[in-house]
């Protein structure tokens, strides 16, 4: 066994790094969330969040926006991914790269471009805040929805849908009863990649029209006011939501299509 000694110890620096810079910060915000300025244990930050109309409104609005954006992404991406994966489009493996290339371009620059286009089309973009939020986020997150869908659909076994056709199912029925249920893991992966960032990415709204009515910027506003206790509580609430969503969806998601940014 002696000859194995050196390899196990290689992990020590990373373990220390994880404890100090990943676990400790989470514990620190947990501590801040559950204490007041004097360091005493309190749940007032939690109650404060749930009794503030503004905070609750932001949470509800964030979830609503994220839901709509996810739905729009799904409606746009599913047919595209399906066509690329199943309809024998020429050079579909090159085309799919075209669909996901935008995710490597800095998102603030892409939103700048979108803002210019929307301004040219609409005149004053602040007249349509909800529409523009949905367009902005869809524009940013769409590639993250297309990729897992494509990965899952292109793996589907064609013989299953052929068998359904042979047994007399029409093409609509084959799609609804065979293809769609089998592509659920890809759909779940796509939803995870779009829904959670859409709930927290406040920069898109901020850039489009200086709005701060979304969960992510709530943290920032408390931070700017040096109210670390409330900011920490909101972080913890977000953390709990994120991990709950992940645990629930993890078992349904496609292993190959997992990982928000595991693209390369």
């Amino acid at each position, binding site marked *: 066994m002696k*000859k194995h*000694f*050196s*390899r*196990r110890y290689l*992990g020590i*620096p*990373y*373990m220390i*790094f*994880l*404890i100090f*810079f*990943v*676990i*400790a*910060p*989470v514990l*620190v*915000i947990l501590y801040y969330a559950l204490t007041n300025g004097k360091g005493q244990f309190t749940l007032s930050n939690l109650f404060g969040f749930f009794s503030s109309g503004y905070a609750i409104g932001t949470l509800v609005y964030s979830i609503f926006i994220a839901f709509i954006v996810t739905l729009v992404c799904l409606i*746009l991406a599913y*047919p595209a991914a399906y066509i*690329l994966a199943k*309809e024998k489009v020429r050079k579909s493996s090159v085309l799919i*790269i*075209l*669909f996901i*290339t*935008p995710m490597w*371009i*800095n*998102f603030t*620059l*892409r939103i*700048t*471009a979108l803002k*210019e*286009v929307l301004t*040219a089309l609409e005149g004053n973009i602040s007249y349509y805040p909800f529409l523009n939020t949905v367009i902005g986020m869809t*524009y940013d997150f*769409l590639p993250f929805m297309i990729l897992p869908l494509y990965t899952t659909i292109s793996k589907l076994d064609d013989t299953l849908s052929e068998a359904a056709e042979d047994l007399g199912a029409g093409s609509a029925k084959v799609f609804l009863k065979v293809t769609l249920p089998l592509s659920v893991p890809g759909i779940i992966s796509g939803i995870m990649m779009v829904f959670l960032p859409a709930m*927290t990415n406040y*920069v898109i709204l*901020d850039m489009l029209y*200086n709005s701060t009515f979304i969960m*992510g910027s709530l*943290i920032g506003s408390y*931070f700017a006011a040096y109210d*670390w206790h409330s900011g920490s509580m909101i*972080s913890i609430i*977000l*953390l709990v939501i*994120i*991990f709950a969503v992940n645990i629930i969806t993890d078992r349904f998601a496609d292993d190959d299509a997992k*990982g*928000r*940014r*595991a*693209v*390369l």
Partner: protein
Amino acid sequence: MKRMGYVLWLLIVLLFLYMPILMLSVYSFTDSESMGIISGFSLDNYRTLFTSPELRDMIIGTFALAIVSAVISVILGTSGAIGAFYSKSGTKMFADSANQIPVVNADVVTGFSICIFLIVVLNMKKETFIPLIIGHTVLSVPFVYLSVMPKLKQMDESLYEAALDMGAKPHAALMKVIIPQIAPGILSGFVMAITLSLDDYFITTYTKPATFDTISTYVVNATKGAQTEIKTALWALSTVIFVIITIAVFFMNVGAGKEKKNV
């Protein structure tokens, strides 16, 4: 007819994804200050982009940060993955789970928690750049770990044993036998670390020194500012980045395609 519909749908989605950035590229070659106003051809934006010291420092700073944090991430993540791979299952479980925290967590929360811990609790100064580099490393290193781990699982263990039996020292066997076998994982981890760092806004904004900006934080501030010269110079920047990314993606995939054929 059905095929026409398919092609049309793909075109609509592609148009949505590319129209803004392509329009911006066209306008970057004019002297207009906002889209929709037609005006003459001009290279002023590119001249500003490459000569303004403020823009140049910001771009160099962004890439320097990306490279430094990616190199640290590769060293930490690769050694961490090798160490965890050969550890007892409990230790490996711990590393796997802790590694997953920054992956699933929202970047805003990651940035905020690092900021609170390093700057508020430990009283570290943002001006030292240490919080910024740690923040970007936390963002990238899990992805290095995740891309190295599968390569370790595929690796042929007997080669390492053979090297030791032939008298190689463990560290020599590690460098000459294990590292080459997991090199593709290390490389893709490195590329991912670079792109994550370049794209990040949230962690940067919580940990950066007041006078330092990356492309992301700079662009966000510039869209709010009134300086049209800077604003339109950023159009030129996004055109340059768009061209570089397109070329890089094209070559990476041509390379990957050839590799697959050889196997």
